[in-house]
């Protein structure tokens, strides 16, 4: 079986927002912003384009609509296929996170770190040590 293409972050978060309950456009925009810690601010033109594409792919479908204070609100929900894709993507990401966590925790003894030794990075008295990434052989 062919490996499914990883979802792009906005798509992943839209599907995640719809995983709990049907939502309308503004609800999805707010939820995606909250899920991404305010980093991803979807605009309606982009959101509805994504919802159309996800509807075409059978991952999302319309649920119901209502009129609130003269404004049309159309709700969308995940389909079973959408739920499966989100589950598979979540599992893929979880495996990646687990693999990275294990590698970070299982750093072999004696490995030199940038700017220091296995016992930890060099620190200057009076300063706070932060994780540093530097290219090997760099100027640092």
């Amino acid at each position: 079986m062919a490996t499914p293409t990883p979802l792009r972050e906005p798509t992943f978060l839209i599907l995640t927002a719809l995983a709990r309950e049907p939502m309308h456009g503004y609800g999805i925009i707010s939820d995606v912003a909250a899920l991404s810690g305010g980093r991803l601010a979807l605009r309606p033109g982009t959101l509805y384009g994504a919802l159309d594409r996800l509807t075409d792919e059978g991952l999302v479908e319309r649920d119901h609509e209502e009129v609130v204070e003269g404004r049309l609100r159309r709700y969308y929900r995940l389909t079973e296929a959408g739920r499966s894709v989100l589950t598979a993507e979540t599992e893929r990401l979880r495996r990646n996170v687990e693999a990275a966590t294990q590698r970070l925790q299982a750093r072999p003894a004696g490995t030199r770190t940038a700017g220091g030794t296995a016992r930890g990075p060099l620190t200057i008295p009076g300063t706070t040590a932060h994780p540093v990434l530097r290219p090997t052989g760099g100027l640092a």
Partner: protein
Amino acid sequence: MNQPNPAQHEAGSPLESRYRRLLWAYPGDYRIERGDEIVGTYLDTVGPGRRWPSPHDALDLLGGGLRERLRGYGALGLAAGFPLAATAALSTLVAVAAFLLLQVEFEDPRFARLDPVGPFQTLGAVIWLGWLVVGLAATTLPGSWTRTAAAGGLLLTIAVPPVAAVIGQPGPPLFVLVPTAALGLVTLALPSHPGWVARSLPPLTAGCVTAASVAFSAAENGGNMFTSYGSTPELLAMAGGSMVALVLLVGLGRALRADDAGLWAALLLATPAGLLGADQLSQAIWGTSGGGPTSTAFAVTAGSILLVGAALLAAALAGQAARHQTVRRRVLDSACPTCGHRSTATARS
């Protein structure tokens, strides 16, 4: 989380009317079906007291409308091709800028029989330095900042000739400026989240061209093959041809994975590439007068290239739309061989 923004705007407010006006970017049937929903969501998201859509909102709606129209034609690959074309266009601009700056602008102005502008032959040096800065921005800054820098580069390209005319200083010729402006226009579609390839290309091309220029100068050993803009048309034509050929190659590779964005990008770049060769083409068709084509001959050739480029794009879109409709009709007409079910999905054209 599912509650709308408490800021309310009356139905039919000036802001709502202005959002609705922007909806004209969408196809008519889509506008009827989704217009209320999209405008309602916009009104939920904006703060109180706003009277005009923000420039970002306007771009979002115009982009959404264009994507929806392309979706109707089954040509979403064209939308995906824009960032690819923009990346290739910027790399080409950086290469051209580095070459013209080193091989022409720093040359002795007496070769071109011009009054020097500081250490440079013409004010064109400002344009090339500008595009090198845009290349640097593409490598180091977020995508949206790079697009702003590209818009600055384009404005600089357009503004330098009239400024040069007003202050009586020499500027680069039209056969260099026109393709530069065309490529600059394409760079406005640079990706919001560029990958490492898109970030690496500008410094890579600048480095390669600088190394080639230095090697070329050393090999010339005092000779001067490129002494003014008049000695560069062949090289510009080659740069345009190489750009399209490379993008086409990438496009064919992606097409093997059912991704036609690269082919659309090659088609988008055909017009700027043609303009890079416009001087050569003009000379071949109309002959030369004083070492190059006349202004009229160049204008006619460049105009023809623009028309042919637009016609090619329109023909490709029409072909794709016809193919899309045929496939869609076949799907809608066919019944499931197991249960006899027919799709009830309505075609959105």
